[in-house]
Every structure is written in structure tokens, then in C-alpha cells.
């Protein structure tokens, strides 16, 4: 499966995502933000980082670049799209997933391992986990506090993908830290599965995000 990894000025973990995708059996390639046509790819990952210096709001400027139109085409064609950390903030800014990831409640950058619950296994990315499975992946963000005006709708549509278990480090509504669109093909998560893709990193719990995507 050919997977596009979208790069903006200020992206990071793009190479980590490349490595994790290779481990999962995919054929990844980098895509610069100015590329409009993503028809070569069967899936897309937007990695983390601080695109455009987080100016205005995290993800706001990346959200209006040409590559986003290519991603919207992918969504219409039913191709899976995963946004990790800054990628999640971008997908929320574009409106491809509901709500917003905004400043952490304690106003700090939080970088730590977290326990997470996989609330839904209906997305390609979570299809290899059991529903309600507890996994470990790290977070690294200052703007990850999830907020939405449509919480009931999210619950009814099974759009809550990941939530913090045992603690709520950033003050997210209902401890939510991963959501998807109604179809379950666009997924936005704050934790970093690529940083938990090999046991030498402390956990390989995140690898199934990529394996499920490739499956």
C-alpha cells in the first residue's frame, strides 16, 4: 500500500512515521504541502510537529494549504487518513473531524507516556485492537485539550476513538484524545503511535495503528 506522509515547514516525527509504516508493510513516501494531487496514494498520514510555528492556532495555517484539497479528495474516495498530534490539530481545523484540540488546561507542554483506552475498533487504524483495550503510547503537546459542542453526537455515532485512562493530563472533555469522522476513515489522535512502534522504544502498542491501516 502506497502511503503519503504530508510534510509542512515545522513537521516532525515524519521519519519516525516512515519507519513505522515500513514495519507495518506499507510503501511510504513524503509529500510536500504544495502538492495538490494525491491520487498516487492509497492512504495518507499527517505527522506531528509545529507546522508554521503554531502561529495563529496549532494547525490553522497548514489547514489552508493546497495539499489539504488533495486530502479532501482522498476522503471522498474512501481512502484512510490519519492525523497524529499536529496532524490531528490540522484535521480538526479543516473540519474533517469534529471539535478542536486547544491549549492544555495546565498551560504546559506535556511529554509523557500515557495509558489509553481504544473506545472504537471500527476505524481501519484501530481495527486490530479489541474494543476497550488498554494500550500505552506517549503524548507530546501543548495544545491537546479536546473540546466539542457535539459530545452526544460523537457518542451516538461512535466517533470517540481514544481516551485517556487513569488520568486526564490535558483536561480534555471526557478525557477524549482521538476522534474520527462519521465514516470512521479520517482519524485524529493526539498520542504518537509511531513513538510506540517497537519494543525497544518502550512499547509496540502503536504499531497496530499502521498495520490496521495497511491491512
Amino acid at each position, binding site marked *: 500500500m502506497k502511503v503519503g506522509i504530508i510534510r509542512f515547514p515545522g513537521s516532525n516525527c515524519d521519519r519516525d512515521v516512515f519507519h513505522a509504516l515500513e514495519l507495518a508493510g506499507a510503501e511510504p513516501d513524503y509529500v510536500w504541502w504544495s502538492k495538490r494531487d494525491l491520487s498516487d496514494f492509497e492512504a495518507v498520514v499527517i505527522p506531528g510537529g509545529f507546522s508554521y510555528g503554531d502561529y495563529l492556532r496549532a494547525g490553522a*495555517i497548514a489547514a489552508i494549504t493546497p495539499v489539504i484539497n488533495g486530502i479532501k479528495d482522498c476522503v471522498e474516495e474512501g481512502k484512510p487518513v490519519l492525523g497524529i498530534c499536529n496532524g490531528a490539530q490540522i484535521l480538526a481545523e479543516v473540519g474533517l473531524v469534529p471539535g*478542536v484540540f486547544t491549549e492544555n488546561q495546565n*498551560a504546559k507542554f506535556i511529554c509523557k507516556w500515557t495509558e489509553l483506552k481504544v473506545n472504537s475498533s471500527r476505524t481501519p487504524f484501530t481495527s486490530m485492537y479489541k474494543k476497550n483495550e488498554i494500550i500505552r503510547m506517549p503524548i507530546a503537546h501543548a495544545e491537546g485539550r479536546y473540546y*466539542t*459542542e457535539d459530545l452526544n453526537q460523537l457518542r451516538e455515532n461512535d466517533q470517540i476513538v481514544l481516551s485517556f485512562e487513569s488520568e486526564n493530563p490535558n483536561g480534555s472533555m471526557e478525557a477524549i484524545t482521538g476522534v474520527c469522522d462519521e465514516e470512521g476513515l479520517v482519524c485524529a489522535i493526539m498520542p504518537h503511535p509511531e513513538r510506540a512502534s517497537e519494543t525497544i522504544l518502550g512499547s509496540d502498542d502503536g504499531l497496530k495503528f499502521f498495520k490496521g491501516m495497511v491491512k
Partner: protein
Amino acid sequence: MKYDTEVKISLKKGMLNPEAATIQRALALLDYQVENTSTVDVIKFSIEGQDTGLVRKEVDEMCQRLLCNPVIHDYQIKISPKEE
């Protein structure tokens, strides 16, 4: 005609504002007891346009498309003829 434009962006009422809360706690460290601290972002630019109404419409569009996130923000637009 040129216009000076000012967009004031604030969090919607009831939204948590960690920056304001941190500032209020810091003021308390200096023994200033204040309440209801909030912060606003101000974006200023000048723009060419036919009249105030048309400029306002264009700036409103900018707010919706980029400058604000309608999920969490309120905004105010101020437009005045550019002082030469």
C-alpha cells in the same frame, strides 16, 4: 480607498482560558488580587476597498476561513478609513 482594520479574537464565554488563569495566578504572586482575567488576540492590517461595508464583509470571511476557529472563538471587527 484604504482602510485600517482591527480584528479582536476572544474565547467564547465559558471557555477555559489557561493563559488568563496563569496570568491571574502570577498577579496574585505579586499580591494583586484580580478577577475575571481574560486575554484577546488582536490582528491589524490595512486593506484596499470600495466602502466600509464591502471591507467588513471580506474581513468577516477571513475570520471564518482562517483567523478564528468558530468552535471556540468570538470576534469583533473594527474598520476605519486609513489615516495618511
